[in-house]
Structures are given as C-alpha cells and as structure tokens.
C-alpha cells in the first residue's frame, strides 16, 4: 500500500527532546522575541525582551544541568549530547548571560549601545538625529538568542552539515550586531561588512572541505568519517585537503593566525558589549566545534594534522603577542590578546588527550569570564563622545578611578597568567597537558610569547598608575547595575578560579569524554 511505503520512507528520526531542550528553548525564545518586536508597544519592548532573554537563557541552562551525564547521539546522528558538548553549552549559556548584562546596559548612554535603525546612512542628518535619540534597537535580543542557540548547536553538531548550518546560524546575527553601534557608525558598519565578507569566504572553504571529506568517506557524520579514515579505498589526498579546508573554516572563527586578520578591525568597530560576546562565547563555540572535529572525526589522523596545527598555534601566539606590543587602542590590544589566547587554547587542544580536552575547556571558561569583565570596564571609561579607547586617554586612570583601574590591572594580570588568577591556572593546565603529550615545543613557544605579551599588558598598568592624569583622561562612568554585575561576576570568577579552581577542574575532568 502506498501509505505504508510513505510511512516507511518518511519515518521521522527519533528525537530526544530532553537532550535537545537547551537549543530548542533558545530557538523558541528567539522566535518569541521576534514576535514581541512585532506586537509589543515600543516602550514595553526593552523590559519584555530583557526578561524574556534572561529567562530563556536560564531555562536553557536548567535544561543543560538536567541533561548532565547524558551520553547519546540523537536526531538521526545529527546531534551528539555528551560531557564536552553539555559543558560547552553550559559555558555558552553562562557567558552569554553575563554578556547579555553588558548589552542591556542603558544607564551609560541614553538608549544603550545600539541605534534604533542601523540601516540609516552613516553620518547623515537622520543618523546624527537617531544617535541622540533615546531609543535603541531591541532586535538585538532575538539576534543574540539565535546566535547563542546556534553556538550551542555548533558545539553539539555531530555531522559536518549540521555543523555548517549551526555556523551560519550563529554567525549571521553576529554580523548584524556588529553594525549597530550608536557611536562611530562608519567604523561599526565597516567592521560588520568585513566580518561578513571574510566570514562568507571562510564558510566557502568549510563547505568545500565538507564536499571533499564526503568524497573520501562517503559520509558526513563524525562516526562515519572516523570509520573511513585510513580504511577508505578513495584517494587519501581528498581526506587531507578536505580536513585542511574544514579546519580553516573553524580556525577562522576561533581567530587563529593567519586567519585572524578580521579580528582587530571587527573587535574595534563592533559595539563593545558585542565584542565581549564574541570574545567570550564565539571563542567557546568555535573551539567546541574544532575539538569535536579533531577528537571525534579525525582522531586517527592526528599524526598528520598535529604538526600543521602546531605550527598554526605557534604562529598565532607569536602574532598575537608581537602585534599587541605596538597597539594604541585598548580594544585592538584586547583583540590581539584574544588571538594570542586562542593560540594557548590550541596548545591544549593539540595534546589530543583527556587532559588536553579538560584543560582546553577550563581555559575557555576562565578566559571568557576575564574578557567579559575587561570589555565591561572598557565600556565604562568614556567621555562625552562615547568610549575613550585610545590608550593615551587611559593615562593616570588609577588616580581618577582607583577601583576600576585596580580591577582592570587585576584582569590584565590574569591575561598575563600571574598566579592567584584564573589565567595562571588555565595556562598551567594547557601547558601541562601539552607536555604530557610530548608537545614540548608548543609549550616553549607558549612561555616565550607569554613573556612578550606581558609587556603590553604591563604597559597599560604602568600607564594607568604611574602617569599623571592628563586633560584628556576621561572619568569612569558610574556603571549601572547590569554592567556592575557583569564586571563583578567576571572579576570574581577570575579570582575564584585562580584560588579555588578545583571544583571547575573536577567538572572539566568529568566532562572530558566525547561520544562517537
């Protein structure tokens, strides 16, 4: 009978809703957010969207906690729910929540950091008008929620096509978010366009890589690729070129040299809260995807990709550290710092061991908290023209605002990896894992570049404390409750993970097992 045949061929894959709930909740909340934009009156949108977003992320986080311990592949092999996946999703949720606090701050500037209509021509009369008006875009909330949902899916994707879809789901909202800065509109739009063009370029590599891998393995799911590696009768060149191109797409998102070139411009141009979101959450998601591809799909060709990716790690650390030395803009400096830090995470990833996986997970969380707090403080140092990001304007900040200068000094010390900060624990973890895996050369490069990059950090410290405040040193704005909360959470986590890292270390240790 025809109906039977139809039922057989169109059989729905079994879906484990509990395991998929974190992502489903976020996508649902995103859709509701779009509806709110359409239905709710203008004045009510901001509080409604904020509450909706916070509740959505909290619900998603609850679902993740409830799913803890699950190890299964669901949705017809498209999604893997396992320790690292859930840990990464949890990290994305928590860091996203803190970033959301920064994004929602409206007391520093009337209407927040985003303009109401990003499409208005920059520097036109209408644009100047909307910059001074108190209204701001509330579309950012559904965009962020979609982006976070995409990141979660990216960290849990179990085949290359799902991964690609997730990549686009979380990238497209980010491109838009970058373009919506209230101040320096041209720079913001330029950043968005650059990010979009280069992102599309990198996505093309990724997609082409998928095609080549499929050509070799005949499958796109990771288990299938794993089985095919070394056993397939097809030309092995297909596999390696494919792997290289897939990796390039991921390395681009994680901002590893030489695919990092977009980072400084985009970090500088994007609204600072969005930069914070990208530096914390995107990094987690990108490394989540990279970890899964390298550990699950291509584990058996680790001897082939390890030296190449090792060279990329060394190059990344060098480029990040050396170029940070001559930066004069605090956001660009933090951008290069984030590039160097991506290099350190890659060192941990390349241990290709349980310890490597656990230490990379720890590093991502620790760095995420610190960078959120750091960018949070950047949003506070401002004058009438908005944020004062040029380093010369930070001279003597210690006299003007000792509290924030102290906090920022502490965060810079964390980036430099000084003990009693999470930066030290995290770096120690990845270096230890790499040494255990006989990747000493990576650690040597890591230590040398750590010394180099300590210089620009300390230069900022010296500038803040030992220079006299000049005419142009801006005061620090009193943060609203949301920014204060975000900075406090970030700095407190940096301190706590430096002093009592054991609970999180245990958590990463327990989570460090991929399902195939």
């Amino acid at each position, binding site marked *: 009978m025809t109906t039977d045949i139809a039922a057989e061929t169109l059989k729905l894959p079994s879906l484990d809703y509990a395991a998929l709930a974190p992502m489903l909740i976020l996508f649902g909340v995103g859709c509701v957010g779009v509806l709110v934009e359409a239905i709710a009156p203008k004045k009510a949108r901001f509080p409604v969207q904020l509450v909706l977003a916070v509740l959505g992320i909290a619900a998603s986080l609850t679902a993740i906690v409830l799913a803890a311990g699950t190890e299964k592949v669901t949705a017809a092999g498209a999604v893997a729910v396992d320790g690292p996946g859930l840990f990464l999703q949890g990290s994305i949720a928590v860091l996203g929540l803190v970033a959301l606090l920064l994004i929602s701050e409206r007391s520093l500037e009337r209407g927040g950091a985003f303009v109401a209509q990003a499409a208005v021509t920059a520097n036109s009369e209408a644009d100047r008008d909307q910059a001074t008006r108190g209204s701001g875009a509330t579309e950012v909330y559904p965009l962020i929620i979609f982006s976070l949902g995409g990141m979660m899916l990216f960290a849990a994707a179990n085949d290359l096509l799902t991964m690609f879809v997730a990549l686009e789901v979380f990238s497209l909202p980010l491109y838009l978010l970058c373009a919506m800065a209230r101040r320096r509109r041209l720079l913001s739009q330029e950043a968005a366009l650059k990010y979009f063009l280069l992102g599309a370029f990198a996505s093309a590599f990724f997609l082409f890589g998928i095609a080549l891998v499929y050509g070799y393995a005949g499958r796109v799911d990771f288990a299938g690729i794993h089985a095919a590696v070394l056993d397939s009768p097809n030309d092995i060149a297909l596999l390696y070129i494919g*792997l*290289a191109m897939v990796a*390039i797409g991921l390395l*681009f998102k994680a901002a590893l040299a030489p695919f990092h070139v977009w980072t400084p411009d985009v970090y500088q141009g994007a609204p600072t809260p969005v930069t914070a979101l990208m530096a914390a959450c995107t990094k987690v998601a990108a490394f989540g995807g990279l970890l899964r591809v390298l550990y699950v799909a291509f584990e058996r060709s680790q001897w082939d990709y390890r030296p190449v990716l090792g060279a990329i790690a060394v190059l990344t650390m060098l480029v990040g550290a050396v170029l940070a*030395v001559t930066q004069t803009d605090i956001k660009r400096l933090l951008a290069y710092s984030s590039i160097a830090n991506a290099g350190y995470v890659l060192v941990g990833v390349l241990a290709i061991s349980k310890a490597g996986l656990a230490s990379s997970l720890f590093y991502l969380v620790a760095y995420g908290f610190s960078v959120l707090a750091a960018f949070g403080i950047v949003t506070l140092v401002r004058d009438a023209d908005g944020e004062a990001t040029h380093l010369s304007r930070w001279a003597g900040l210690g006299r003007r605002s000792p509290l924030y200068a102290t906090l920022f000094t502490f965060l810079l010390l964390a980036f430099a990896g000084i003990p009693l900060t999470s930066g030290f624990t995290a770096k120690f973890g990845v270096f230890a894992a790499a040494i255990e895996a006989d990747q000493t050369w990576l650690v040597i490069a890591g230590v040398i570049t750590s010394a180099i990059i300590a210089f620009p950090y300390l230069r900022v410290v010296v500038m803040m404390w030992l220079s006299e405040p000049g005419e142009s040193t801006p005061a620090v704005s009193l943060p609203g409750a949301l920014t204060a909360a975000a900075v406090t959470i970030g700095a407190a986590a940096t301190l706590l993970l430096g002093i009592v890292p054991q609970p999180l270390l245990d958590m990463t240790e327990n989570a460090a097992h991929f399902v195939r």
Partner: protein
Amino acid sequence: MEIEFAAAEGWLHNVWLLIAVPLVSAAILLLLGKRADKWGHWLGAGSVGVTFVLALTFFFQLRGMDEREGVELSLFEYLPVAGLKVDFGLLYDPLAAIFTLLITGVGFLIHVYAVGYMSHDPGRRRFFGFFNLFVAAMLLLVLGNNFVMLYIGWEGVGLASYLLISFYFDRPAAATAGKKAFLINRVGDAGFAIAIFLMFATLGTTQYDEVFNGVGQLTGATVTAMGLLLLLGACGKSGQFPLHTWLPDAMEGPTPVSALIHAATMVTAGVYLIARSHPVFDASETAQAVVVTIGAITLLIGCIIGCAKDDIKRVLAYSTVSQIGYMFLAVGLGGAAYALGLIHLLAHGFFKAGLFLGAGSVMHGMQDQTDIRRFGGLAKHMRITWITFLLGYLAIIGLPPLSGFFSKDPIIHSAFERHGWSGWVLGSVALIGAGLTAFYMTRLYVLTFHGKPRWTEGQHPHESPPVMTIPLILLAVGSVAAGGLMATSVPGWLEPVLGEHEEHHARLSEWTVTAMTMAVVILGAGLGFALFRRGTALQEQPAGPLVTAARRNLYFDTLNEVVFELPGKLLTRALVFLDNRGIDGVVNGLAATVGGGSGRLRRAQTGFVRSYALSILGGAVLVVAAMMAVTLS
C-alpha cells in the same frame, strides 16, 4: 622517656581564647581607624586584662589535674601536604602556663601604664592595636604545640616589635632602629627556619612530642646542627652575642614597648625556645657548650657596655642583654638549671619591666630627657617612682631578700658546678657580671635620683598620674616577692616538662657562693656610689681605651659592618653592574627586536578586506600544502 600529651577537656578546651581575645581587639583597633580613637586604649588594656583572668582560670584548672604533663588542642589542619601534616594546634602545659601568666599579667600592667604614658600621643590607638597584636602573637608563640606554630608566633612578635620600634617613624633614628632590628632578626630567623626544615627532613614532623621522642634516633651531628640552628634563632630574638646589637637601638620605641617587648617578654622567647626544645639540647653536649659560652660572653658584654652608657634606656637595655645572658647560661647548663633560668626569666620580667616603666615615668616628668647626666635629685620630686625604682634596682643587683637574689645566685652557683675547668671559668664570669651589674645599676640609680639636680633649664619634674604609678607599685611588689615565692615552687611546677633533677653541689657550698656574690655586689655598688654620689660631668669626658670601646658598643656595630654590610654592598654592586651591562643589554636588544618586528608586521594589517582575504587564501594554500607535505613525507 616517652612524651605524651592528653587531649584538652572541659574548660581547658577554650585555651584558644587566650590568643583570640587580644587578636580580635587588635583587629578592631586597627580596622576601625579613627572611629576607635576615643575608647581604643581602654579596649586594648581591657582585652589583656580579660586574657589575664582567663589565664588564671586555665592555670588553676591545670594545677588541679593529677597528670600535669599538659593538654593538647588541635584546632584545624594548617598545612596538609603529602607526607607532611601541620595542625594549628595548641599545647597548654606548665611551661606554657607560667609564660602565659607572665605575658598577660605584666602585659596588663604595662597596658594600663601606657594609657597614661601615651595620653598625649595622637597615635595612641594605633599603638594599642600593635600592642594587642604583640600579646596575641606572643601567646601563640608559647601556646603552639609544634615548631611551625612557634615560628608563626615568633614572626608575629617580630612584626609587632618592628612596628613598635619604628612607632615614631618620622624620626630617622626610630626608622633606622626598626630596620636594624628587622635585618638582624632575619639572620636568626633564617637559622630557626632551617632548623624546622631539618626536622621535616629527618623526622617528618614538627610536633613537639614527636620531635622530642624522635631525637634519640638521630645521629649526633644532626642533633647538634639542629640545636645550633635553634640557638641561632634564639640569639637573634633574644639579643645574644653576636646578634645583640639591635636590642639597645630598639629603645627608640615608646617606653612601654621597651618594658614589655624588649625586656619582659619577647626577648626572652629565645630562652623559651631552648627550654622548650630541651630534649634536643640535652642530646647534644656541643650545643649545650655553645649555649653556655654565648650566655657567658653576652652577660659580660652587656655589663661592660652598660657601665659606659649615659642614656637611661640604653643602660637598661644592655642590662637586659646581660640578664638574658644569665638565662642562656642557666638553660645551657641543663638539668636542674633549666628551672633556674626560667625563674630568673620570670623575676627579671617583673623587675626589669618595673625599671623601664620607672625610667618612662622619669622621662614623662622630664620632658622626654633620657640622658642620666641631666638628671639628679629626682627622689624628692617623684616619690613613688623613686621608691619603686629603688626596689627594682635592689632586686636586679641581687640583694636579699629581693627577687634577684633568689634567681641569680643559684645560676652563679650552678655555673661553678659545671664539670671540668669550664665550671670555674663560667662561675667566675657570672660572678664578675654580678659585680659589674651592681656597679652600673648603682651609677644609674644614684645619678638619676640623688645628688644635685643637673637638669636643663625650664624643667619641672613631677610625679606621674596614678594610672602610671599604680602599675609601678604592683610591679615593685612583684620585684620584692616574686623571687622568694618562685624559688621553691617553680621547679616543682615545671617538673612534668623538664623532668626531675637531683641538685648536687660538689665544689662549693651554697653559703660560699652567696658570700662571694654578696662581696662582689657590695664592692660594685660601693664603688658606684663612691664615684657618682657627687654627680658627674655634663659632657662625655676623654677616657681610656676600654671605656671608649665600651662607649662604642665594643665595636660590634663596626664588626657587623665589616662582616655583613660590606660584602652585601659589594655583592649588590657587582649584581647591579652585571644587570646593567649584561642582562639589560640582552633584554633591551630583545625588546627592540620585538618592537621593531611588531611595527613592521602591523603594516600588514592594512584595513582592506581584499588584503585580508588574500592573507586567508595564502594561509589556506599553506595549510593545505603543509598537510600534503606531512602526509606524503
């Protein structure tokens, strides 16, 4: 003999309160800041009073017990590391009990006195904060049940001492004295720390009972090294030769500090350390010999320099150095003499604190004058100070039946009884010391209180307020009675700690020694009285080589300069040279390379999407090529 401590039960379970009360008070005083200025000094004095009452209750509790070996109380794990476990634990035994009483009792009186003495000082609250901190640290020092606790207290009292020596930090002399005390104590503390490391290394523990029980298994050389290192620490803290030079300079601090920290309690910590670790010293003949030698040398040095000083507090400071020399001599002799050293320590705590407070009272009435050449005839103007100082003076020179007689004479006697020729030498030194003590103390006393006034113009000496005189009177009572009371009771009380010892006097009878001592004391005192009863010159007079040397502290400061300071300076100079020429050159060169490279690389960051895309494409080609190369190779 196996040493074992029972666990603390009942009221003794609260022994930690002794440390907590002054510590909390110190925290309140130091954290509240100016808000506590009005009532802070009463809190400071009151907390020590409460601690004293607590100490009394604990004392009677322990006295009522059948087994008085001491009770242990483990509060929490302090250093739990693999193979090494240090608890934050307390031990309340007879030795700790008498120290606790001394520290809190004399400490309370001095705190009360300081309320009056510091009444015009704007930093009075800060002073009491540090003072309370000292009491807490000192109590931790004597109450700890392992060497690490002792060390923490040791460093704590050191900290309080430096803070209080430099209390008037705007005076260069006080700031320098604080620094000097700190640096010289570093030398001693390093020795003590190494001794603790040695315990870790050889015995794997720092608990008193386990260390002492384990001493027997160690080789002689190890025990000797341990003893000598402990001794080095003790010498630093107690101002013993050759590390004694900081103590007289420490008199730059306020006088109550000199009385409590640099006379009655902290400086005797070295004696406590040696008495506490007596099983270590008992096991090493060499270490004991070094202890007695150091004690003998120091007691002579202190006496000789004391004769030549003109500053009332410095004379008392050198007298402290020399009296602690007696205590070292006693504890170095070992056996029954341990108890003698501790009795002298307690008696000295009373009369020296009384003397210092008397000196403070004199300074209080003489506008902070300290030069004894500028005193004279004060007896009429400060009756109470005069009488109490007189009693303290008679006590220290050892006139019967005051306390010095009961505590010092037996030490001299025991020194004579040491086996071999060394007994004769040590006994004679101790005897000569007694004579010299009588001489310089008579000089000090006569020049201050008798003869014609030699005051600078515009001085109107007056008696101090009751808040200062009442502690003086109470301490004077202690100076009179303490020695006689303790001479018989303390050895029995300490028996559970130090063990039973038969006293056997072979060489000289008690009476012979007493007679000899009395003779030299009367000789010294008579000489001092005859020389100085008519006063003295107002300026320093030219003198023979010995007096000049004594005035210059027997050149020990110069010795320190040559032995420690000069090599240190040369070393730093060499290092600076190496740093400037060698290391900085390399570092600067590297920095320039990085900076230049950074500047050049930066130009690649053009801002054009096309060049970025080219960079990505280039990177992609390289990665693919590298993958192929790795695979094919």
